[in-house]
């Protein structure tokens, strides 16, 4: 692949804190390598801003290898930018051309308030997990991993659901700010396995109740979440969660 450098105009959301009014700021970056990641380009920009005595741009990041779910930028109108099944940290500058203008915004949702600039508070997801995204395990010696036979398809489906990194791109993308894809992945990965059976009913009821309490919107099946999910989580999980909810809801006292 051809290597090249580019000069870019960046329009980035700057917001001092959750209570202040934010606005876009325009920055120029020069000689960006096509082999840099999008976050490395931001590192270059921030070093430049620090040298100039200006406030660097706050953004979330951790592993930078596409598995932690921390990076969360809405780039040119798409969560994690233009590449499919990809996180912002794995987006490379070869996705852009010399002279491009790139608009970068934080996730927008009532349940994800902006902390600063591009950093949003995603602890709503943690509270949903705390409401039921777990299994009970006895203390003592570790149980043999293969003691319980599990159907290959169920194991595969559970694994596919467990690939969710909780980045929040589904919420950011959904026109309703709905967290259904995230919650359904977390419900599915446990509902499909025998280990998840004891809390199967209470899990889905409690997690959905917490999701609603956090102020996420309602799913209208546009499937934008699936299209933008960096891990390719399927909306089949949402259908499964609906079934689980129906089952548990009808059975509950």
């Amino acid at each position, binding site marked *: 692949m051809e290597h090249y450098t580019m000069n870019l105009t960046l329009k980035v959301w700057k917001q001092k804190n959750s209570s202040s009014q934010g606005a876009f700021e325009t920055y120029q970056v020069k000689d960006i390598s096509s082999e840099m990641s999008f976050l490395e380009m931001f590192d270059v920009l921030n070093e430049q801003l620090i040298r100039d005595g200006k406030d660097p741009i706050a953004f979330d990041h951790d592993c930078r290898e596409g598995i932690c779910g921390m990076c969360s930028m809405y780039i040119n109108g798409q969560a994690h930018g233009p590449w499919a099944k990809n996180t912002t940290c794995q987006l490379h500058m070869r996705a852009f051309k010399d002279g491009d203008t790139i608009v970068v915004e934080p996730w927008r949702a009532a349940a994800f308030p902006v902390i600063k600039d591009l950093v949003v508070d995603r602890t709503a997801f943690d509270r949903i997990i705390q409401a039921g995204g777990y299994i009970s395990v006895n203390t003592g010696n570790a149980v043999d991993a293969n003691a319980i036979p599990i159907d290959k398809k169920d194991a595969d489906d559970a694994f596919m659901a467990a690939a969710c990194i909780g980045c929040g791109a589904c919420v950011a993308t959904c026109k309703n700010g709905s967290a259904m894809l995230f919650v359904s992945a977390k419900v599915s990965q446990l509902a499909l396995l025998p280990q998840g059976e004891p809390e199967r009913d209470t899990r889905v009821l409690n997690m959905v109740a917490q999701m609603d309490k956090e102020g996420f919107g309602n799913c209208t099946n546009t*499937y934008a979440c699936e299209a933008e999910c960096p891990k390719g989580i399927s909306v089949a999980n949402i259908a499964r969660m*609906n079934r689980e909810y129906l089952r548990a809801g009808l059975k509950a006292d």
Partner: protein
Amino acid sequence: MTWKQFFTSSIGKKFIMGLTGLFLISFLVVHCTINSMIFFNDGGEMFNTYAHFMSHNYIIRVIEVGLFAGLLAHIIQGLMLMKQNSAARPVGYAANAAGKNSKWYSRSMGLLGTLLLFFLVLHISKFFVNTKIALYSGDQPHNTFEEMKEYFQQLWVVVAYIAGVVSLFWHLLHGFPSAFQTLGINHKRYTPIIQAAGTAFSVIVCLLFALMPLSFYLGWIN
């Protein structure tokens, strides 16, 4: 868990939309089939026979109450969802490439539904109300066919009806398969069949409905 908790949860609200939506789809099958009797072009004889049956049969008249209840539930729940969903994103995006990840009509169900509501006000205030007036004033047999023929001579009415049917088409194209997903039916083999059936249903029903005012206006039926 109370029934209220169940049906006011985000998934419970989806169930209400999906179930009432499918119920309204089943009504469209009946409505479209009976109205298509005008295409026999027999001066409305066949059509009026069925129209008379529909307005006089007691079972149908009980179901009619259920139909209005279902329609109202669909409308009210839909409007409430629109309000809640827009509150879930108080600050919008400056750049939003929504067209890259979803279909415009899937994102516009609220708007399409509102357009349909305007159409329904026009539609019901004419045919449904007139049929009821005729029924209770003893003005029988009521000639709905002649009423249609006369009404559809006006260009603005024909345009309004076709606009209503176009809104219905896009609303159904999303709504039909979406209702199944909501009720938990998502399957490698069945979902493509549901989607194909939904598309076929939307095309056939809306084409027949659009042909009705058009046929009267152009004099294909008289």
